[in-house]
């Protein structure tokens, strides 16, 4: 499906917020929070495969989808340099989203690290619309890497950790004081080590914990079997069985 870039907000040297609308004017399909897209990178000598990118936000009224893209190599660099009116082909939507907390008064924390905050924004909106007040814990290297803070603040209380202490509490998200509180549901997206550390914290306090994995993918459709994660059911495709997994499905040493 072709999308036209309607805005490209360079949040940071390394990050771009792309806002796109279906080129042919079609309505966006129903998108669940936590799902992702497979983006084609047309004019790039050294990019052969599509790039999987999680969906940051969906604005059905304006029929616009947001992608938060980090410059992680030549393919994503081309994407963050997209110009308005550029047309980008995407396979959308892919994968399974986050599951809703069991009860409407569940105390819910969404933890994002770096660009991993992307899917939490749209999920935060959905939670809020369901009458659940999410809290957010955003972690990054430093203040400049805390993305879309104003957007998150519209949806719930935001806690911040930065490694250099330039904003919020100093250190990794896993040592943030908010984690001393007990939560019923914890959702996490970020670097694997961070997600594993969060899982370690969630388990003992009996919180339901879901993480969103970013294994390298080729097709995104469950055909190539490249992005597999070892689970209690054996190797499964992150693109079709995930990208969101309950930590109890995974075989992480936690």
């Amino acid at each position: 499906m072709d999308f036209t870039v309607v805005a490209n907000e360079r949040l940071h040297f390394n990050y771009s917020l792309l806002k796109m609308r279906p080129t042919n004017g079609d309505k966006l399909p129903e998108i669940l929070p936590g799902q992702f897209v497979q983006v084609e990178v047309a004019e790039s000598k050294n990019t052969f495969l599509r790039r999987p990118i999680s969906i940051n936000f969906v604005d059905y009224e304006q029929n616009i989808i947001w992608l938060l893209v980090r410059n992680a190599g030549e393919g994503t660099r081309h994407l963050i340099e997209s110009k308005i009116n550029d047309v980008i082909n995407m396979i959308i939507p892919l994968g399974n989203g986050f599951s809703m907390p069991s009860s409407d008064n569940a105390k819910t924390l969404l933890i994002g690290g770096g660009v991993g905050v992307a899917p939490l924004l749209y999920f935060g909106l959905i939670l809020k619309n369901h009458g659940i007040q999410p809290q957010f814990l955003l972690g990054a290297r430093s203040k400049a890497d805390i993305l879309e803070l104003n957007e998150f603040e519209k949806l719930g209380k935001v806690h911040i950790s930065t490694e250099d202490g330039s904003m919020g509490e100093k250190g990794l998200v896993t040592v943030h004081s908010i984690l001393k509180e007990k939560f019923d549901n914890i959702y996490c997206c970020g670097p694997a080590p961070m997600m594993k550390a969060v899982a370690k914290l969630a388990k003992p306090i009996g919180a339901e914990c879901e993480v969103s994995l970013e294994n390298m993918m080729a097709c995104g459709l469950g055909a190539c079997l490249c992005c597999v994660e070892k689970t209690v059911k054996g190797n499964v495709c992150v693109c079709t069985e995930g990208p969101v997994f309950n930590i109890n499905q995974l075989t992480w040493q936690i």
Partner: protein
Amino acid sequence: MANLNIKIGNLKFKNPVLTASGTFGYGEEFTDFIDINRLGGYIIKGTTINHREGNPYPRMVETPSGMLNAVGLQNKGVDYFIEHIYPRISQYDTNLIVNVSGANVDDYVAVCEKLNPLEHVKAIEVNISCPNVKQGGMAFGTTCAGAAQVTKAVRNAYSGTVIVKLSPNVTDITEIAKAVEAEGADSVSLINTLMGMAIDTERQKPYLSTYTGGLSGPAVRPIAVRMVWQTAKAVNIPVIGLGGIMNGRDAIEFILAGATAIEVGTANFIDPSVTMKIIDYIDEYCIRHNVSDISELIGAVK
């Protein structure tokens, strides 16, 4: 509308466009993007006698105009296929072909015997060229004796059309093809992936858990076209060509080189609807070149 029908052994195909094993799942993954019934046929993923978990992650890395994979024949085994998957996919109006792999000759035979009764499985593609498994796989495909041994056993165990998938990791692929033909294969398909390796220079580690993997994509197309051209001249059975076919032009290139049919593989990952475009292109190409029957193009390179 040109006549795109072709024949492999006794099996008729409505057109020469097939999907390559391991790149098309069981077909179901692509029903949102294509009409499977329009395909000449589709080859489902490598099936073994027992359930296989495949290789550990990471299994894939992008390379210039291609990719390396080291999936390692992950599949739930032939019994699970027959019980749970076959019933779901057997109704398509196209040729269902099962790719068969094994660690030893007995494994190949056992899988063939279980597939033989399935009326909707029209052919098997015998994989003697998988570079990503420790036992069997490529070991059979890199010697004439090994290739002949597997072919002979499979030929006796399976009554339908037998296609043998050849490895390009050999000095002379025509010798392997001739050995396979001599044992009664109805067709050879080539090329499987070329064994390759890529290293993350910053971490000083290979990108794949298995160090080496199979290279596919347009990067290898010139090698595949050369091998199809050589093999089509060396054997009398039809050759199925694959290796980096990304569009209709590439498909025609293989047909002109001598391929009776072609398989689309890695391209499915980039454009899930590419097979439909290729079928349309072939038809347009025939009209543009006043070709009334696709057979006029097979091996027509001057």
